[in-house]
């Protein structure tokens, strides 16, 4: 995206990696970056959700803007295509009165030989305050957080298969609005856990919030190694996995999973792991149906379920703005009263 290469004199090899909290929290436990849910504590997650709640109330009013981040510049640095996530980050920033710069970097910069760090330095030189980063490689947000100038915050908007913390937070927000207490809930996450950053962040968030039971449901070819060590019960049968659950989170199935021999066909996947009206009846009668979007209707979810009374899929999108406002205001040290 930029034409010049800056050899940064301060660029050095990163020191051995600190634990996530040493990187993303300040010494007094405040959020400096939002890189991953892992390692955060219940108080902090609750604080984020409470802050988001106050913004949600505001977002329902006619005047949807507060001056909390006036004069701040937020850069959406997206190395991977995304419409919804980028748009909600942009709206969140604008409702906090920040200036927003959208930088979509496709592979052409990489072809020109511009490194990630060069890109970062170039934009950093424009005196920005926050990077919202999405990248196809796991660990990118950590890498950027380690190398940005002090005072710049990094929000992870999805890195490879690793983490998508604000998505998980908006899911928790949605669940809390409908269900309140997490400790009695059974939650099933269904689908391609192996490739899902969303699932990983959701699992961490649900466990930190002391959810009664977290299940993952998938064929063995879509489960990562030792997934139970993340603190989940593993089901290979959807009917069993849905039994009495209070929340069902469906994950999107990418077409390339068929090409790379994870699955035989969309048809067989839908037969075995698609959420249908019939299967929904196995869950608790007041069960919520969630999906981080965009849903593949007829592949992982039946249209009637996606659009049905249990579905909160569109609410998730709406709450995404409030949650991102909360995280942005907190990392900028501008907490909502």
């Amino acid at each position: 995206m930029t034409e010049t290469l800056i050899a940064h004199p301060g660029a050095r090899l990163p020191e051995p990696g600190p634990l996530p909290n040493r990187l993303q929290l300040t010494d007094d436990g405040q959020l400096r970056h939002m890189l991953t849910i892992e390692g955060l504590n219940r108080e902090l997650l609750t604080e984020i959700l409470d802050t988001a709640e106050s913004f949600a109330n505001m977002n329902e009013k006619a005047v949807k803007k507060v001056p909390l981040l006036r004069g701040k510049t937020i850069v959406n640095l997206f190395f991977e295509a995304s419409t919804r996530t980028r748009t909600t980050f942009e709206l969140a920033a604008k409702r906090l009165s920040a200036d927003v710069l959208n930088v979509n970097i496709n592979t052409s910069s990489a072809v020109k030989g511009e490194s990630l760090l060069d890109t970062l330095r170039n934009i950093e030189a424009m005196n920005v305050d926050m990077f919202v980063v999405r990248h196809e490689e796991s660990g990118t947000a950590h890498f950027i957080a380690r190398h940005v100038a002090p005072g710049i915050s990094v929000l992870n908007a999805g890195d490879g298969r690793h983490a998508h913390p604000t998505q998980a937070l908006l899911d928790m927000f949605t669940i809390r609005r409908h269900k309140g207490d997490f400790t009695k809930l059974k939650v099933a996450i269904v689908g391609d856990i192996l490739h899902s950053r969303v699932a990983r962040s959701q699992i961490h968030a649900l466990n930190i919030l002391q959810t009664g039971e977290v299940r993952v449901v998938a064929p063995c070819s879509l489960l990562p190694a030792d997934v139970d060590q993340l603190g989940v019960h593993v089901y290979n049968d959807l009917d069993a996995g849905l039994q009495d659950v209070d929340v069902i989170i469906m994950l999107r199935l990418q077409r390339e999973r068929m090409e790379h021999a994870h699955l035989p066909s969309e048809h067989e996947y839908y037969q075995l792991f698609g959420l249908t009206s019939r299967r929904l009846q196995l869950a608790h009668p007041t069960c919520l149906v969630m999906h981080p979007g965009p849903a593949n209707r007829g592949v992982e979810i039946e249209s009637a379920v996606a659009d049905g009374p249990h579905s909160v899929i569109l609410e998730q999108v709406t709450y995404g703005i409030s949650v991102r406002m909360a995280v942005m205001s907190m990392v900028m040290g501008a907490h909502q009263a």
Partner: protein
Amino acid sequence: MSVLIENARILDPVDGFDAVGSLCVQGSEILARGQAPDGFEPRRRIDASGLWLIPGLIDLAARLREPGQEHKATVASETLAAARGGITSLVVPPDTEPPIDSPAEVELINRRARQACGVRVYVLGALTHQLEGQQLAEMAALMQAGARGVSNASKPLASLLVLRRALEYATTFGLTIVLSAQDPALTGSGCMHEGAVSTRLGLASIPEAAETAALGAILALVEQTGARVHVARLSTRRGAEMITKARAEGLPVSADVAAHQLFLTEVDVAEYDPNCHVIPPLRGQRDRDGLRAAVARGDISAICSDHQPHEPDSKLGPFAGTEPGISALETLLPLTLRLVEDGLMSLHEALARVTTGPAEILDFAQGRLTPGARADFVLWDPTAMQEVRREDWLSAGHNTPFFNWTFSGQVRETWVAGRPVWTLPTEGNPEDTA
């Protein structure tokens, strides 16, 4: 020139020799070990009281980055780093740019080595043309040019049929074939060990079976062809057990392990530390312990550095996009001796894994201190404490996870062919190379 090194504790793993005494050097060879022969009149005497005198190390895998990647390192820079690490002979895998698949590349590297500090540099020739895995390389020509064995480095072969033919052809000349056990499809784009940590970090992973499946195929073809195969850089407990079993059955196989695999695990990747990005990957605790046990038994008979120096940019990025490898020449000896401190093996056994063990694999005459052997040796100060520090580092590659580690003991002098090639700088006399 004749030199008498006196009062050193001489440790020679070739026969378990361990005594305080003298080493007599005549020209480039060792004249006597233990006691000076009557009438030996040295031109120079060195008092090595308090020091150990051990054979110079033989490292089976060190990338020097020449030709083709001089921005990472050079033969000159890395042989000096080797000398600082007590390594007097090293073996370069054929994956240079271009690959070592003709006598021209062998000669180029030999020429560079002659202009460098004096550490002996050997090469492995390519097993296949351009390491492409399809057509056999001209192994006989490579051997005549000086290649010590043949290898496809970590590049895949097109099929097991190509591997079979390559083993058969190499056996014609008695060449040792050095193979890495790594199934390319199971490895895929993986960048770390498959397990709980890769799941947590969301990194594409390499399963244990990438090693064991490939190793199973290699062992089947060794049995079929009788070829002498050396398996390079084992990383799993199961792989080490397969080697143990194959050797017990009398198959002509040997194996080595990179020193870092005996100390680090997947957990050291922590939060995407690119200095812990290596292929084969750092694996689990059980694997590390299994590899250590196989080294102690001697079924893994060599510990190598698997030295891969990189320029800073190669390690500056998200984990999977960084280049794998550790700059490791300068930590090979301290790590190997740490195994003795850890109670895993005797001093002689540990020294054998970096001297006589590798010597046997590629038929080197050095790696011993017996009369008539090449005068390649190291004077080691066992009482010095050595912190691994960037400012002391001689390799052009600063990519090591071992900075700030402290080791007991330090190389004082390294000698090749009867002359010192490196001397520890001392205060007031920093340039003294005696």
